[in-house]
């Protein structure tokens, strides 16, 4: 199985993780929401797959380009 990394497009903090480990997601689904510039910026699954792991917790600070979750595709 191939792996796919979900990355944050922005610097900000994790506001809400809206999926769970083991959950199946489709390409385009929101995995978690980052708060940045007073906006709720979704982290979108680029490919369909299953959430393998989260690399961040809610309220954690993230930087642009940081991998926040790993998907099995």
């Amino acid at each position, binding site marked *: 199985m191939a792996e796919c990394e979900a990355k944050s497009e922005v610097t900000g903090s994790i506001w809400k993780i809206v999926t769970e480990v083991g959950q199946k997601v489709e390409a385009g689904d929101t995995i978690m929401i980052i708060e*940045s*510039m007073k906006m709720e*910026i*979704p982290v979108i699954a680029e490919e369909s797959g299953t959430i393998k792991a989260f690399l961040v917790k809610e309220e954690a600070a993230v930087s642009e380009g940081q991998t926040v979750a790993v998907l099995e595709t």
Partner: protein
Amino acid sequence: MSDATKEAAAIGWEPEIEELRFRRAEAQRLGGAEAIEKHHSQNRLTIRERIGGLVDGGTFQEVGGLTGQGRYADGKLAGVTPAPYVMGLANIEGRPVAIGGEDFTIRGGTSWSGDRKKGGQGGFIEDLAASYLIPLVNLIDGAGGSVTSINRRGHSVFPGVHGFERSVELMGKVPVVSAVLGTAAGGPAGRAILSHWSVMVKGTSQVFAAGPPVVERSLGQKISKEDLGGADIAVDHAGTIDNRAKDEAECFAMVKRYLSYMPQNVWEMPPIVDIGDPVDRADDALASIVPRDRRRPYNMRKLIELVADKGSIFEIQPTYGKALITAFARMNGKVVGILANNPMVYGGAMDVRAARKQTHFIELCDSFHIPLVFFVDVPGFMVGKDAEAAATLREGMRAVYVALQASVPMFTVVVRKCYGMAGMGATDKNGLDFKIAWPSAEWGSLPIEGGVAAAFRREIAAAPDPKAREREIEADLRSMASPFRTAEAFGVEDIIDPRETRAYLCRFIDAAQGRIRTTLGPKARYGVRP
């Protein structure tokens, strides 16, 4: 008539014409079967295959096909090693272009010294584009100069002996497109930047000022050429090259697509392509695309698709400076340049990359008389220490400055936020200053949140419940921030149902065509950019 004269008349120039055939066949062999096979094994096409893959079939008229190094045995021609650059005149979608590129199969496409340069800066190919005022297509696959030229010449060449002056002149006259199709360093890398648009192929092309050996010698850094100047760095991270293609075929398709939006030169109008998409098409999805919750972003790309002519969007720099979307599109068949803030990235705030992208795109469209459409959702310049350290303010003001110098018509659609200097940079201050807004629009010199805390600091601090007082003041101010109140004062020219956007814009873009025709020609630019 003597027998010898009769014989000569019968032969005519056949021996020479035969030699010409032989020399032409030698040119077709490029660097030989072995070098071509090696080149192909790296998923790279030869320069002749590249030209063949890009131009209209049968339209390539090569110039300088006989150039190269002849090999002679006992005074007779044994063979010719071609000059490592192939170029000429061709058509793309029925319009003439000057096209050329290095032949990597011969000495890695390094420069060659004939009486006149074929390609590169100051070469015949640039002269052809400049003299005939036709687009220039550079297919770049060469390492440029080599220190070995010192041996050949017996002296060291001063920088600029073959300078970029012609390349620079072309930037104000005809479209210049560069496809980086191999490892480009030095001069060829420089030329890739001196283009209106550039593209590279992921995995098989790299671009840098100097390659890994020089980097290791200078800085002690060991790095692969892909890590140093592959598409991840050059396109996505640095914006040195505009777009990436997955292979050479896609790259050629993108070059054609880009040129389809361009006039042949700055004295002509861009081509009109009417695909029959009704001007009054009013997509219902537009009425609800912007969430009522101000914290929630939406898909700006989708919004643009719903407004522009169907299938007409071509994004420039889609992976760099993602807080801003820049794209060519058509409205009722006419080419427009679209600048749209992307709320999915930093809420659309203009960071240093978005600012650079905006500056370039406005200058590009202004130079080629392509009207601009702004879809505005910008909370302002990006804030924070990183943003300040990156000179966001300077780059942002540069974007504002070029917008204020541009004379092409601009149309502003305020979709949601329009704040501060970044918001001002999205309006036609040199022209009609025509702004239409959606009911979701809001604007000001700065957003109410944050602004309240600063302006009412003492009042808030003195309140029994400062937080509650802050929110109260915010609510009061927001009630007066309705876009309709500004429309009453004609501070914004109109507020429209989002579904009317396409028809409204098409009407004014059509009407502006006559004015655009009066400004054709090169644009002079005075003053000093901030």
